[in-house]
Every structure is written in structure tokens, then in C-alpha cells.
């Protein structure tokens, strides 16, 4: 007992010292976000305005982030997981409930987005939308015209119908190596419920994938950016922002590659990257100030103008560049919006079924 007491008091003394030390020093917020996902001048402006130093770290997959969060003690104050991941992480008790009284700028958020994010975080109790986008088809106009006779794609048929896919085989098709992105869009193409967790529906999606699998050059979630930009491949099922990034790279390289992005008419998956505060975050006050700052209309508009993704902030729209706001691939019109769907988190058993199905599609085993 005595020893425990001694250790406790030592810990308390150490913690007090640590707290005092932190107060005497600069205030800090540790942000963990996706790579290439912010205009870095925003971080400098934030420090100028609040005196809080931003330590900014990046990751390139939800899985890496999730593993750090589930292991605990990540040391991050603000993280940006995608909706369905966030939903499960909330269940696991990873996040702190947001103190809305410290987030007055939440009034700027867009109901069109929050009504969808309510599916995985009802009432935005734990998270604020940062950016959102779609899963769609990125394609090389010239090569598509040579293979299909038309330079526009508007349907999943181009990649999910074996006859069409066979024609595109030689110029190169890439699929995302991600069951949670690919299976729902295949379900949408087949006219089934895209958020279905029914084994029968997933089996139908598998069957359809097995038919186009021979025509797919590679299943990979990031290589297609370079592949499209260089002209190594001609079609990719990918995330909107990544395709825009490929388009910009091709323009910069002036290599004659002209890329376009399609939201297929059968509908597609919408994804939402949500800012949240881990329950074990060391600087929660600073994290809330950061979140509130990111909801300022001019600030988040600056970020969207830089990364070419739509944000969930209604008030920011007047500050957006016309090339962002008026691009229907970034901000789809009302009619297209109504075809978009949101996927919810999978329970462990369904997750395993998704992954196993996908391994079979990718490797044939």
C-alpha cells in the first residue's frame, strides 16, 4: 500500500510538473490528417491568430489511422477518419464528445451534408465534416474514344460490363483495392441496395466482379493517380480528388493526356472525411479551437480551392473559386446528389465476408 501511495504521489508530482511546463511553453495542437489534404498557409494563419502551434502529421490510409487510434495513446488531438471508419471508432470509445459551446462556427455547416453524416454520427456529436467526395470513374478521353468510339463515360457499364471492359483491357483498367468502396458501387450497378450487408447480394456482386476481373490490369488504391497522368492506364475506378490530382499532373506535364471524371448515372458512394478529437487527446482545448477555426467560411474555402474537394460548410460556398464551385464533378447538381448514397459501418462478420470476397476477386483464390 505504502509503495502504491508513494508511486501515486510521484506520478501526481510529475504530472503537475508536466502541466505547468506545458502552460509555460507555447500551446500546441497535434493534427493527424491525410497527405496532400490542406493548404499549409491555413496552419500558419491559425498559429498567427491563436498563438497555438500546429504539429501536422499525415497518413495515407484509414487503416493506419485506425490502428493507431485503437492501440491508444496516439498523442494526436485532431484526426480525420472517413465516415464508416469513424462510426466503428465511436462504438469502440475512441472519441471525445464535442463541446458545442466552444464551436460557435458550427452554424456554418451545410444541412445537405450533415443529414448524410447523421447516418454514422447522429447530431454530429463526435465529428465535423472536413471534405467529402465520391467514388467514380477517371478516364483518358483520347484512349476511350479509340477503344469505345465515344469520349465520355456516364455509366458503370464501361467497367462493370464484361463486353465493354474487354474493349478497355489493352489500354489498362485499374480498380481500387478496397472492398468497402468497390462492392457498394457494384451493388448500385446491379440495381441492388448499395448498403446491403446480405450475403446473397454480396455473392451477386462477387459473381459480377469475377466476370470483369480478367480485364483489370491492377487492383491498387493509389498507383492509378500516376497511371492515369502518364497514360499507362486509360480507366480507373477511384476517388474524385485523386482523379483531379492526376488531371492536374497531366496538365503540368503537358504530355497530351486529357483526363475526365464521371459520376456514373446509376449512383455512387459518397464519402465524408470527418474531423474528430480522440478521448485521450492531450490538448483538447486547442483541438476545439482548431476545429472552430476550420469551420470559418473563408478558411475551409481556401482549403477546398487548394485540394479540389467539396466541403460540408454552406457559408464557405461564396468564397470558393468558380472552377471548384461550378465543377459538377466536385459539387454535383441536385439531380446527381439524389443518386448518391452513403455506406454505414460493417459488423465484424460482414467485414470479413467483404474482405474474403474481395481477396477472391483480386487473387482468384
Amino acid at each position, binding site marked *: 500500500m505504502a509503495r502504491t501511495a508513494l508511486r501515486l504521489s510521484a506520478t501526481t508530482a510529475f504530472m503537475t510538473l508536466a502541466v505547468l511546463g506545458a502552460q509555460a511553453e507555447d500551446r500546441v495542437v497535434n493534427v493527424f490528417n491525410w497527405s496532400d489534404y490542406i493548404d499549409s498557409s491555413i496552419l500558419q494563419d491559425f498559429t498567427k491568430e491563436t498563438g497555438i502551434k500546429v504539429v501536422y502529421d499525415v497518413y495515407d*490510409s484509414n*487503416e*493506419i489511422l*485506425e*490502428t493507431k*487510434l*485503437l*492501440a*491508444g495513446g496516439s498523442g494526436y488531438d485532431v484526426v480525420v477518419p472517413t465516415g464508416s471508419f469513424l462510426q*466503428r471508432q465511436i*462504438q*469502440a*470509445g*475512441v472519441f471525445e464528445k464535442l463541446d458545442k459551446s466552444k464551436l460557435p462556427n458550427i452554424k456554418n455547416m451545410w444541412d445537405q451534408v450533415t443529414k448524410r453524416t447523421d447516418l454514422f454520427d447522429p447530431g454530429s456529436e463526435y465529428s465535423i465534416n472536413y471534405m467529402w467526395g465520391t467514388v467514380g470513374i477517371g478516364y483518358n478521353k483520347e484512349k476511350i474514344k479509340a477503344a469505345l468510339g465515344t469520349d465520355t463515360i456516364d455509366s458503370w457499364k464501361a467497367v462493370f460490363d464484361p463486353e465493354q471492359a474487354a474493349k478497355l483491357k489493352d489500354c489498362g483498367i485499374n480498380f481500387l*483495392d478496397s*472492398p468497402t468502396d468497390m462492392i457498394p458501387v457494384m451493388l448500385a450497378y446491379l440495381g441492388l441496395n448499395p448498403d446491403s450487408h446480405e450475403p446473397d447480394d454480396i455473392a451477386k456482386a462477387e459473381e459480377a466482379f469475377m466476370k470483369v476481373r480478367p480485364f483489370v*490490369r*491492377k*487492383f*491498387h488504391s493509389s498507383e492509378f493517380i500516376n497511371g492515369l497522368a*502518364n497514360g*499507362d492506364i486509360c480507366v480507373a475506378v477511384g476517388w474524385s480528388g485523386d482523379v483531379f490530382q492526376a488531371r492536374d499532373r497531366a496538365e503540368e506535364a503537358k504530355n497530351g493526356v486529357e483526363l475526365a471524371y464521371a459520376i456514373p448515372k446509376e449512383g455512387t458512394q459518397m464519402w465524408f472525411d470527418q474531423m474528430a478529437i480522440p478521448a485521450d487527446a492531450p490538448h483538447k482545448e486547442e483541438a476545439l479551437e482548431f476545429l472552430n477555426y476550420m469551420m470559418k467560411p473563408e478558411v475551409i474555402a481556401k482549403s477546398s480551392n487548394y485540394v479540389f474537394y467539396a466541403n460540408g460548410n454552406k457559408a464557405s460556398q461564396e468564397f470558393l473559386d468558380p472552377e471548384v464551385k461550378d465543377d459538377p464533378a466536385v459539387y454535383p447538381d441536385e439531380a446527381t446528389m439524389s443518386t448518391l448514397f452513403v455506406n454505414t459501418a460493417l459488423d*465484424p462478420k460482414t*467485414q*470479413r465476408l467483404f*474482405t*474474403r470476397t474481395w*481477396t477472391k476477386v*483480386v*487473387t*482468384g*483464390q
Partner: protein
Amino acid sequence: MTNVALPAADTATAAQKPLPARLAAAFVSRLVIIVPYVWLLFFFLIPFLIVFKISLSTTAIAMPPYAPVLGFGDGISGFIDGLKQLSFDNYVWLTQDALYFNAYITSVIVAGISTFLTLLIGYPIAYGMARAPASLRPTLLMMVILPFWTSFLIRVYAWIGILKPEGLLNQLLLGIGVIQEPLIITNTYTAIFIGIVYSYLPFMVLPLYSSLEKMDHSLIEAAQDLGCQPIAAFWKITFPLSIPGVVAGCLLVFIPAVGEFVIPDLLGSSRTLMIGKTLWTEFFTNRDWPVSSAVAIILLLVLIVPIVFFQNAQARAQEAGR
């Protein structure tokens, strides 16, 4: 052996030294033996036991994502309750789906072929280095190590640039008219072999070089004086003497190649099913730490069995040689 020798040394010095000094000396000599064991305990055995324990638990939506966590938070009884929940179900699961078995087999075959190719290329390099003039050897050694100064990832990426259909290799071959159509090398097993052989070549060359360099060249001269042809002399003298280097080099290449994740992911086809990728999927995509731990434990066994076998064979060969 060492333990037997120690008391003898102690008694020899007993007459000259006072007791505290003798105890100190005994302690120091014991410490020298203990240090490697302590190292193994903390950096091998304890992590292994933690992973083994996780492999016996079940997944949960929690932090960490498995149960029971098996801490002492609820006292000894809580710990014992936790122990009762452990089970070998995850290992049974691994046998029920052919996926895992196939992944292990593919990995071992890919690693085996790569190791053989690395040996085939690495041996002449090491031989050439060991026979080079002594003044040149440090430079050659430097050239083998030099690639390590660049990031491994960047070097593997560079191979994509070389091997892809519009890459440097195809441009060269098309340019000189050897081929008419570009070769498809990226996203095939060939590309994986090239990547592994290239990346692990130094691990093969260095141990081979160190065993070949130590070899007494007069043995070859003696063999030749006795009428042995150069090729026969190589197989009768040089190669047997370099076997420790061959074994060390092969293990250094084979072991990391079995679990290789980056090279098959970047250079290989998505259709290649290897255990590194399977483990990644279980851990990150399925969030199934228990099953991925079981996969890792089995992988460790797959690797340890041949090593123990090799070591036993070597020890027996040495005994026989005496």
C-alpha cells in the same frame, strides 16, 4: 561448455585474490553470458508471448480491438477469468480456409526461387571481390553497400520506371531491335523476383565475401599441383569451404523474403497472394488482431523450423569434421 570451464578458472585464481574480487569476477563472467539472454528475453520472447496471447483472444469493438485484454486491472481473479476465455479457435480458422495455406506456400516458393537466384548472382560477385587485389576490395565492398544509402522504397519505385511497358528497359530493347513489342514485366512474378534479388543481393554477397576472403588460396594451388582441374577444384575445395557463408546468405535473404510486403505490392500483380499481404489484410482491413497474430505465429514457425534444421545439420557436420 563455458559453465564447466568457469569453476576451474575460479579455483586457479582463488589463491591470489581476496573473496570480494573473486565474486566480482564470477559475476562479470556470468553477466557476459546473461546479457544476450536478457536481450532475447525482452526483444524476442516477451513480444512473442504478447503476440501469442493476442492470437488466442477474440476480436472486439473496443480499444484495443480484442478481448480479453488480460491485464491485472481486476486483480488476480480477473486475470484468471481472462485466461479461461483464451482459445485456439483462430488457429482452427486458419486451417478451414485454403487461402492461408496457399499464401504460405506461394510465399515460401517465391522466397525460395528468389534466394536461389540471389545465390546464383551473388556468388560470382563475392568470388570476384574476394579474388580482387587487396587494395581494390574496400572500394568494391563500398559499392555493394552503397545502395543502402538511398531509401529502399525509392529503389523499388525506380524499378517500376525501368521495367514498365514504356520504361527504360523496353525502350532500350526496342531501340536496338531485339524485340518488336514491349515486354510486360511489371505486375508479374518476374518483376517480384527481380525486385527481391536486387534488394537482398548485398545480404547474400557480404557473408559470402567474408567466408571466401578468409579462405587460404594455397589450398587451391595444392589441388592444382595434384592435378585437379580448376572447375573440379572449385567444387571440391572452394565451395565446401564457403558453405557457412552460403547458409548465412541464404537465410538472410530467405527469411525477410518470405514476409516481404512492399516488393510484391509495388512490382507484383494484385493477383499474387503472399503471406505479408494476407497478414496486412487481416490486421488492417479486417481489424482482426487475433487472426493476424495467429498468422504471424505460424509464419514464425514456418521460418524457425528450417533454421533449426540447418543449424543442427551444421553442428553435426562440424562434429563429424573433428
